[in-house]
């Protein structure tokens, strides 16, 4: 702008310090612009660093979870002395149940169970390079728990204390609560946004929008107790006490839906009201009603912004912790019944990280593996929705 005006005055040839007209029009190298652009790029690139940090931290700790073997006292002493070459011996009936292919440890020696007959155990001695030695009666059998990737993804029971590591028990309930929340929040939020943007007066919008946004700031603990002491009894009185368990994913999901409602409504409303007025006027000019203008013109034009709102809201629903921890119960269960209790991934992470378990137990380390899994779940969701946006995005002038 300044260049232009300067070159105009240059033609007037009045002042002495003017540059020549030709020089001023040549493209100048602007150091300031370059610095600003690099700074902005760094801002954007920071997100990559954050992601790498998260993946690195979680990955490092997850290795501890998948790689390590943990010994637990089975409370099952041997009932007779075992010599160096004995491969079959009796154990007491108390304590843990042993299974074929279980790895056990007596004193320092590892053994692999190959056969089982009531209390009589057949083993492969000196397993994994350990030395086969004699053991006295009464020696304690320790049983190995080990989490493998295969077990993690293919089984459906999650009880690290007794060696069950099937992530689906936790993952399905995360999907369930998020799905319920989305079913509640998306239609309500979008309808609210359309109302605020297309129907409400300027004044009404300026008051109603911040009021709804309060919902996003209510502490989630309060929501949790709201779900437990208000929503659950409500559901139980509608569907019957026998159908709805006291802790259930449905009430947690509905209340998460209320929590994310302002995310959907506020962000969508912004997108809707950013649609140029000319589009609306054109629609009205063709004789469209208000609804038709809103639904057929404005909403498609704001589609990218609305999807962004959905993504943020869904992501928040997946990551929500306190509500599910209080209202959905703390027992991992593989179920698709929304009226049953089932612990979610986030609920498990927060419970274990605040609990009394030792920090070097498998259970404690599992929270990192769960976190990583959660990370990849949201990643998949995002890549998928990004595709959709790309496909349906409409650009107006």
């Amino acid at each position, binding site marked *: 702008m300044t260049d232009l005006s300067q070159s105009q005055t240059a033609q007037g040839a009045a002042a002495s310090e003017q540059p020549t007209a030709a020089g001023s029009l040549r493209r100048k190298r602007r150091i300031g612009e370059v610095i600003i652009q690099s700074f902005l790029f760094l801002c954007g690139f920071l997100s990559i660093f954050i992601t790498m940090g998260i993946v690195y931290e979680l990955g490092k700790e997850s290795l501890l979870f998948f790689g390590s073997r943990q010994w637990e006292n089975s*409370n099952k002493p041997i009932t007779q002395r075992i010599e160096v070459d004995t491969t079959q011996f009796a154990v007491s009936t108390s304590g843990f149940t042993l299974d074929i292919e279980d790895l056990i440890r007596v004193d320092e020696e590892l053994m692999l169970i190959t056969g089982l007959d009531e209390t009589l155990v057949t083993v492969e001695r000196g397993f994994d390079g350990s030395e086969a030695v004699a053991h006295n009666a009464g020696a304690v059998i320790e049983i190995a728990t080990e989490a493998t990737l295969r077990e993690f993804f293919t089984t459906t029971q999650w009880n690290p204390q007794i060696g069950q590591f099937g992530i689906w028990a936790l993952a399905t309930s995360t999907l369930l609560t998020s799905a319920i929340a989305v079913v509640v929040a998306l239609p309500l939020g979008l309808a609210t946004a359309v109302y605020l943007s297309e129907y409400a007066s300027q004044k009404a919008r300026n008051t109603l929008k911040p009021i709804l946004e309060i919902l996003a700031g209510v502490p989630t603990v309060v929501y949790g107790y709201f779900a437990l002491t208000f929503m659950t009894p409500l559901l139980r009185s509608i569907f019957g006490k026998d159908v709805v368990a006291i802790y259930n994913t449905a009430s947690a999901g509905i209340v998460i839906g209320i929590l994310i409602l302002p995310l959907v409504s506020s962000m969508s409303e912004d997108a809707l009201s950013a649609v140029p007025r000319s589009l609306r006027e054109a629609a009205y000019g063709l004789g469209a009603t208000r609804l038709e203008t809103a639904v057929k013109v404005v909403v498609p034009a704001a589609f990218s912004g609305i999807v962004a709102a959905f993504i943020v809201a869904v992501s928040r629903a997946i990551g929500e912790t306190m509500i599910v921890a209080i209202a959905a119960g703390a027992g991992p269960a593989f179920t698709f019944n929304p009226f049953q209790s089932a612990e979610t991934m986030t609920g498990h992470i927060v419970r274990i990280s605040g609990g009394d378990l030792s920090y070097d137990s498998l259970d404690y380390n599992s929270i990192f593996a769960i976190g990583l899994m959660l990370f990849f779940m949201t990643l998949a969701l995002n890549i998928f929705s990004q595709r959709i946006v790309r496909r349906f995005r409409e650009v107006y002038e």
Partner: protein
Amino acid sequence: MQRKLYALLALLIVMSMVLAACGGSTATDAPADTGTDSGDTSTDSGDTGDDAMDDPMAMYDPATVTGDVVTAGSSTVFPLSERMAELFRQAGYAGNITVDSIGSGAGYERFCVEGESDIANTSRPIRDTEVESCQSIGRNPIEFRVGTDALAVVVSSENDFVTDVSMEELALIFGEAETWSDVRSEWPDEPIQRFIPGTDSGTFDYFVEEVFDENEEPILAASNTQLSEDDNVLVQGILGSPYAIGFYGYAYYAENEGALNILSIEGVEPIRENVDNNSYPLARPLFIYSDATILVEKPQVASFIWFYLTNVNDEVVDVGYFPASDADLLAARNAFLAAVGR
């Protein structure tokens, strides 16, 4: 428009300055606080019972020690440590004492692995592996028993058939039995609804240890079992049905006494005398842990622990727990004296 953006930036700066100012006013308080130390040497506070304090303990007078005390650990021990920390400050301690409620596991981690805290509050004894990691950073954990948390086994007050159970029956109720009649034939043929604390909690761990001989399988495999992290939430669950049963910390029962019935175990009622004389079988110890080097190097930590051990019995009931037995407390005090070399 540009002006408005500047206005925004100005607003953010003003906000930060307001924050700084808030902090600033308190910063001026802090030196004044420490200045009071020299003023008084005796702490004859009415409510803290300093009678037990001998003369050699004068160096552990709360009003003369300086520096911060950092404690972290179990959420069960938290209310007790919080109360003691507050009274410690009321007795004249002018430094900053913090109690973080992060769970026993993380409490041991901060004490034994990261070496950040001076005291670990825990609701379970330290494990061997934890002692090892403590030793590898040069700390030798010393255990101080500070109280007892009785586990209450409760049913709804609508339940009129159970009043007393044996340990074997408890194992059946929370394990293999499907219906109440599976446990005792005269009880109704209704499914048992179980409400238990989360598997990560010291309460669960202790119950499994005492009732199931450390074998978690039966209790985790039992049907109709609802787990919750929060004992208040468990209370809500048990209130819902006459066939429900659950267990959790005694304080949560005491608060809902009217609506819940507590069961005697092996004929022993969970009342103070029975917990004191160890006849009630489900009484869980509460501890704090520290290390001799810390006690010597940081007199304020020693002062706090001594204050804790001499005054805890006046407060423990009010907070909702049972006192540790006199013998245990005496042992804790002796351990303290040995650690500081007296």
